[in-house]
């Protein structure tokens, strides 16, 4: 049965109190950045927290932990899986001294966790060889801009593109790009949509995963902002960046394509052949390939002026900010990041490997592989620099303000997509994001 308003409010506040109490209990308050894990003896027991992903991912992770425990005698790792929907909230609500020695985190939240002393820098604990083997794109995503230190290592990365149904594209006489070099411009993409719509009874020819929620709008559509040549946040300011004229124009144009978008409530728009194009990440490759086979083509996102862009970053692994056994945690990460474990994981989830050795030989991502496009994009990461035509993969803003940014951006974006005024919505989002920076002293102390 439902509870009246005040009980709900009570519950909200009560948990807020609990959070504050734990926050005060740890008595931080000193200056920026800053947690360091004790190296410890390099032996003993360590706790590991991971998110409970797809079945195959869980199996690969469990096998890696078992393999680590039997490969040596000094360290015993215990894995605790937490359902992915609750994972980030769990870490957010746990005080640093109660976090495990090793924990997984969703890429863009690294800065927020580092700022809150929930993660410790990994250099010196994880071997130089492991760090050296990380691809440039995951290294960027795991580097905290404030102290330029690396706070995690990644088994895999992510890629974003447009999947095409060759049969439908050809039938409508639409030519499509061969690779990153000749990506559609936004206008060409629009023409392609119009041509496809002319052949389609309901004119719905594009899927942008309207059925996804959560982090998707930020991940899936932030590249539009970057492709307009802007960083969403620059020098701790969204004002003048997120709401700059080219971004407004690009987002407005995207919103105009809504009439071509299948709402995809059954998540089968592309696999059933209802739409010719699907704007989504690498994780749909396996199901799409199974449904379309030879008819499947993988294309870059349209170019809104500063070159085609793609998303990057995914789950990564770090060392708890209050770990007393950092050295042992480092040994575990070294093992977890070895070729066979990364291969097992990326075979299970079809993600672009986060290590140089594995991505070079991965059947999907190696040169000539069907997803080489994503690997190419990731090898040209824009990093934290303003996006230009020379780079492709763009990380989501690496800042402790990310939770606010993501909420504000996705809300503004969806409002514009549903017919709202682009300038007004982006102004409002920029103002809210900047307010958060101001309130928190720009997250510098």
């Amino acid at each position, binding site marked *: *049965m*439902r*509870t*009246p*308003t*005040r*009980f*709900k*409010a*009570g*519950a*909200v*506040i*009560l948990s*807020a*109190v609990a*959070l*504050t109490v734990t*926050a*005060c209990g*740890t*008595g*931080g*308050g000193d200056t920026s950045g800053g947690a360091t894990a004790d190296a410890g003896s390099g032996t003993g027991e360590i706790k590991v927290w991971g998110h409970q992903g797809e079945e195959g991912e869980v199996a690969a992770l469990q096998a890696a932990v078992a393999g680590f425990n039997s490969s040596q005698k000094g360290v015993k790792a215990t894995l605790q899986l937490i359902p992915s929907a609750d994972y980030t*909230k769990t*870490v*957010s*609500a746990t*005080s*640093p001294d109660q976090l495990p020695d090793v924990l997984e985190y969703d890429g863009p939240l690294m800065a*927020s*966790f580092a*700022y*809150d*002393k*929930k993660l410790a820098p990994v250099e010196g604990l994880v071997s130089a060889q492991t760090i050296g083997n990380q691809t440039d794109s995951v290294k960027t995503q795991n580097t905290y801009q404030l102290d330029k230190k690396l706070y995690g290592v990644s088994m895999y990365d992510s890629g974003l593109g447009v999947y095409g149904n060759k049969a439908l594209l050809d039938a409508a006489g639409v030519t499509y790009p061969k690779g990153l070099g000749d990506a559609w411009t936004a206008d060409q993409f629009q023409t392609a949509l119009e041509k496809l719509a002319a052949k389609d009874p*309901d004119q*719905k020819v594009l899927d942008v995963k309207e059925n996804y*929620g959560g982090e998707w709008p930020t991940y899936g559509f932030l590249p539009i902002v970057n492709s307009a040549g802007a960083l969403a946040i620059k020098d701790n300011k969204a004002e003048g960046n997120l709401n700059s004229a080219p971004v407004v124009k690009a987002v407005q144009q995207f919103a105009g394509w809504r009439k071509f978008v*299948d*709402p995809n*409530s*059954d998540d089968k728009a592309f696999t059933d052949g209802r739409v010719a194009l699907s704007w989504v990440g690498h994780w749909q490759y396996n199901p799409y390939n199974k449904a379309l086979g030879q008819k499947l083509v993988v294309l870059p996102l349209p170019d809104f002026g500063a070159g085609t862009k793609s998303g990057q970053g995914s789950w990564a692994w770090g060392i708890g900010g209050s770990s007393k056994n950092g050295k042992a945690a480092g040994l575990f990460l070294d093992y977890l990041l070895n070729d066979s474990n990364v291969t097992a994981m990326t075979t299970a989830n079809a993600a672009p490997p986060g290590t140089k050795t594995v991505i070079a030989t991965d059947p999907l991502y190696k040169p000539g592989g069907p997803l080489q496009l994503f690997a190419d994009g990731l090898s040209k990461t824009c990093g934290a620099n303003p996006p230009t035509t020379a780079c492709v993969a763009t990380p989501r803003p690496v800042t402790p303000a990310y*939770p*606010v940014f993501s*909420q*504000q951006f996705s*809300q503004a974006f*969806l*409002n514009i997509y*549903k*017919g*709202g005024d682009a300038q007004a*919505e982006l102004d409002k989002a920029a103002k809210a994001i900047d307010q*958060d920076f101001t*309130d*928190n002293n720009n997250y510098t102390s």
Partner: protein
Amino acid sequence: MSTVKTINRDAESAEVGAGRPRRDTRSALVMIAPAIIGLVAFVIVPFIAAGYLSLFNVRANSSRPPVWFGLEQYHRILTDPTFYRGLLNNFIFAAVVVPVQTLLALGLALLLNQSLRFMSVFRTFFFMPVVFPMALVAVIWKLIFSRDDLGMLNAFLHAISFGHIPPIDWLGSTTTALLSIIILSIWQGVGFQMIIILAGLQGISKSLYEAAQIDTANRWQQFLNITVPGLRNTLIFVVMVTTIFAFRLFDQVYILTQGGPQNATTTVMYQAVTSAFTENNVGRGAAITVVFFVIVLTITVVQRRLLREDREVA
């Protein structure tokens, strides 16, 4: 069912209780202790805590101590057009749902108060949506409201109009989004009010109707002069509870529209929860709930006063 009975009995005993002499004080205290402890732990303490937290910049996941903010959160909220839009949506929602849902519940209760065979089966059917969690109901209705012709509602309209009604973007258009939320909420909530009214109906003595029949009163006269006065207390209770439910509107919005499009379905509760738990801005979330508490309290007090006066006149 047992809750319903208790609620009714509470309402009655509250009326009678006022004039009764004081006795059995100790056992009375023991009896009300669980309720008082619950109220203190879940209403009073959190409310004081919210008032306190709302004066600070508190971050949900921060290891840094909260920073004094004074009335800044309140200043921001009270100058934020989105907040007023949320409040307006809450009022529209309440203004539509309270009368419509109460009348619908009354109608259903009257229908289901007849002694036909299988009546308990029908009652169960109408009560079932109340038992389902709102999260589940909202997910199902998301499919019903889907904007393409795969959406069940659109497919239905398409079929009965022989293709003359084009697919409507129920949840994505500013004109229909709040209406869609209202429809689903009434569907989900009406069974609860129905059960309470049904209990009220069964509390009306049959002899009154028999007497009325002897006096040759027709069905409508019986309804106006026996059923409605007999249900007065029940209806007052239903209206008050529905009002409070209407103001706590959150789950449906969170799942179906996330407050969009263009804040057409945002609610105060939705803003409080996203501030505190998505943006980790606990101070703002707390301040919103304090403002909201004051507003809902005022409405409830006014409503009680109006309804009580009504009762005295009668």
